[in-house]
């Protein structure tokens, strides 16, 4: 067991094939300086390095919008799809290829507006995938239109007098769906929490939904200013089953012990707007996972032909 030469050899071998975070960067992100998408990309790269995932064994699926350029910047297989439809594509990929780790990246318009129908059903399918909602409260790529998550009263090109409706809360919506299995919230200005949350989402088997709060430097630079300036306005949800990033207790005074298995408390906390809450709201690993319940054993072409003959016997005249 203590044979030094052999373990040295192995170490060398491991070291040569070890990928670091930057190995997962394919191209430089072409987002605006200060865009929250960079933070998400960095956290994802760190996660991939930590997990040592092979580039060919991952699929990053996105829709349309600034954040949906994400797959172009990751060293993995990627599918940059159409607006609002990342989730059906990702579902198809996972059903066909359960061996792949599937990641989905959507913006707030993509997921909660044009793709809202798919979002509800994908939550219910609970297909095993890590789902990132990059929520900057605005349509950026089309240049400053109100999105469902834009705060009420916030002005944009389509709401010059301010958004007329209360913002849609993606956490409340997801937590309301039957068979939802993982719902978390994090923020681009707390990188340690962002990384730890993505790790927890990746570790969870099922539809792991993470809302990442972020700012658009062009159109919503100030949406979270108060929270960024004053950590006391943010409450961390902590639990041994939750997100536990080292050092955060020094930054945030408000901490709440919240058991992610408690759906009622999760919904109540999502509804309360007194403080901004980051952490895992809900997690249940015992719910049906769609790609698992739909898995069928492979059948060889020869066997298929034999079975087809029997099928045709039913129609024989």
């Amino acid at each position: 067991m203590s044979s030094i030469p052999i373990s040295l050899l192995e170490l060398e071998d491991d070291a040569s094939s070890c990928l670091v975070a930057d190995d997962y960067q394919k191209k430089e992100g072409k987002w605006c300086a200060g865009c929250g998408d960079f933070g998400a990309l960095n956290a994802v790269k760190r996660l991939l390095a930590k997990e040592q995932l092979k580039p060919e064994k991952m699929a990053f699926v996105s829709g349309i919008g600034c954040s949906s350029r994400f797959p172009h910047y990751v060293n993995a297989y990627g599918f940059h799809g159409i607006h609002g439809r990342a989730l059906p594509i990702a579902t198809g990929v996972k059903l066909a290829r359960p061996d792949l780790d599937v990641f989905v990246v959507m913006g707030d318009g993509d997921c909660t507006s044009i793709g809202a129908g798919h979002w509800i059903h994908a939550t219910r399918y609970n297909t095993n995938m890590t789902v990132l909602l990059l929520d900057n409260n605005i349509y950026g790529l089309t240049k400053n239109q109100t999105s469902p998550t834009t705060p009420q009263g916030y002005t944009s090109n389509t709401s010059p007098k301010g958004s007329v409706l209360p913002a849609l809360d993606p956490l409340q919506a997801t937590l309301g769906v039957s068979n939802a299995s993982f719902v978390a919230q994090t923020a681009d200005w707390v990188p340690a929490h962002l990384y730890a949350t993505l790790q927890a989402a990746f570790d969870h088997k099922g539809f792991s939904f993470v809302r990442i709060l972020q700012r658009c430097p062009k159109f919503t630079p100030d949406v979270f200013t108060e929270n960024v300036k004053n950590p006391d306005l943010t409450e961390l949800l902590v639990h041994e089953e939750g997100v536990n990033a080292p050092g955060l207790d020094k930054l945030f005074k408000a901490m709440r012990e919240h058991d992610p298995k408690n759906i009622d408390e999760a919904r109540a906390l999502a509804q309360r707007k007194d403080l901004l809450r980051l952490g895992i709201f809900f997690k249940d690993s015992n719910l049906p996972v769609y790609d698992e319940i739909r898995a069928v054993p492979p059948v060889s072409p020869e066997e298929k032909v034999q079975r087809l003959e029997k099928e045709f016997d039913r129609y024989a005249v």
Partner: protein
Amino acid sequence: MNKSTTIDAAVHAVREHTVEIITNSGEGAQKCAQIFGQTCAKMGNGVWTVEIIPAEIEPPHHTVTSTSGNIIRFGTEKITNWGDQSKLAIAFNDQVCLSRHRLNSFDDNCIILQESAWAESEDEVIRKMYAEAMEEMSSKNYRFIQVPIEEETLKVVDNPQHGKNMFALGLLAEIYNRDLAIIEKQIAHIFQKKSAKVTELNVQLVKNGMQWARDNLDFRFNVETIPAEEKRVVMNGNQAAALGAVAAGMEMCSMYPITPATSVSHELAAIIENYGGIVHQAEDEIAAAGVALGASYGGKVALTVTSGPGMALKTEFLGLAIMTEIPLVVLDVQRGGPSTGLPTKVEQSDLLSSIYGQHGDAPRVVIAPRSIEECFHSMVTARRIAETFRCVVIVLTDANLATGVQQFTRPEFDIRWQQEPVDFSPVPEGLRPYDWDPETGLSRRIIPGTPGGAHTVTGLAHDELSNVSYEPESNERGCKMRSRKLAVFQSTLMPPDVTGDQEGDLLVVGWGSTQGAIEEAVDRARKEGHKVSTCQLTFMSPLEPGLKEIFSRFKKVMTVEINYSDTVGDPYITEETRRYGQLAWLLRAHTLVDIDCWTSCPGQPLRPNDIYNSIIAKSEKGASK
């Protein structure tokens, strides 16, 4: 049940006959017809059956809108379409009978076996409706025979709703001298999941129906049967398409319920898991396309099944599949449109939208099977084309093929029909995701999981590396390469066959499900000396080669289609304003030949006789030119 009362019956020998069973929906007409059709097929008759289905599940009974039924045309030779009017009908009430009369579905001398209970109903309203219906139908020379269907059924079962159909089957079995042993086997098969008692009661009802016919009917028809030398199967087009998908090795059917396509997924849902695949019922039509595309991206050539309104919703995803060059097979079982249109009824009006219904230039392959048999084989062809050419293949069937039942040669399965295992060998250095062969536009698809091939596909304009590119040259090249594939595929096709003389006065061109009816009509015209031939297309995009040359050999060319076209002479309609049938538009643009059309959109298959009349009218016009 006393044999001694049996009356003498005249036996009429006929080459073919058309029968309809018409009931309220929910009274089992389909089961009756299914067994009768199967029995005819097994005995060696050619058969074509057509469902008459209301759009609702069970609309109010005893009304002209509640008609559910089935038409069975069978004959000594092969039957390729539903034919003309029915010679015999069994009607469970006067109102459903009236609805068929109003559609001109009965031959002038049709024999109608009608439920006798309504004439003397205790309900005055029903008696009045009955009297009025009979009065209206008296314009024709129908022979009505009153049959106590319900009364006789009650002798065997308590609820006549579940039994009248089998009594009716017995009537048909006796009239056409069908083999009771075959019928019994069919009944046992249909009710195999129920108790033996159910089969027994149903067989008893058939026997009682036969006995009643022996006791009361003075006619029989003999349609000679010629047992087939080859192995055959009998099924409808949706079943054939579903089995074709399995034979093609497809392991993902992603769909959303829509009439008349849904039964494809019923068939698949019942069996596909035995073949390593699944049916995924998506949350909507768009997601159904998305899941299929995702699965195809993952390496399975997936299928999505839909009808017109669903095609409209899937449009954006088809564009994405074409842009990313991910193979995808789409089965569109056409129905009447636009909008919700005629959900259960036939139309051939998705041709142009299937070929051109995309923003941007979006070349794809469109195939239209012409028979039930081709519904099976076209799925195999479609998968193969989709994969070879990294493209979208749309298979256009219609409600006529979907629910029509016909027998065909049992396919001999070929293992090569199925998808080959995905090639996961490492990507050679320098191979690009869209390494277009400049000659053909073809390139190797790199599927996730392949080492060294990680790249991101995108619906944005892209270069060979799949990098987003807005460069003018790059976009031109992408368009050219995607289009080139279609031309390469077209080069593998043969010119279509011309049935009849290779030149003449009139060429009738059809596509898809109308083949049988058109050929029958043309055949009749030819026998009368008209110089008319026909040509039936199945590849709609790209079109089969040689069309212009074929058309040049005829004085006049016209299409026959089940869709709308203007008639010159109608208000505002001139040669200049006239809108043509969809195939006519396509062929005019493709060949610059002045092609005429005769189209009709009655929500039912074309009748050979109507096509014949249009042929005669056109060829006379043509001759006088």
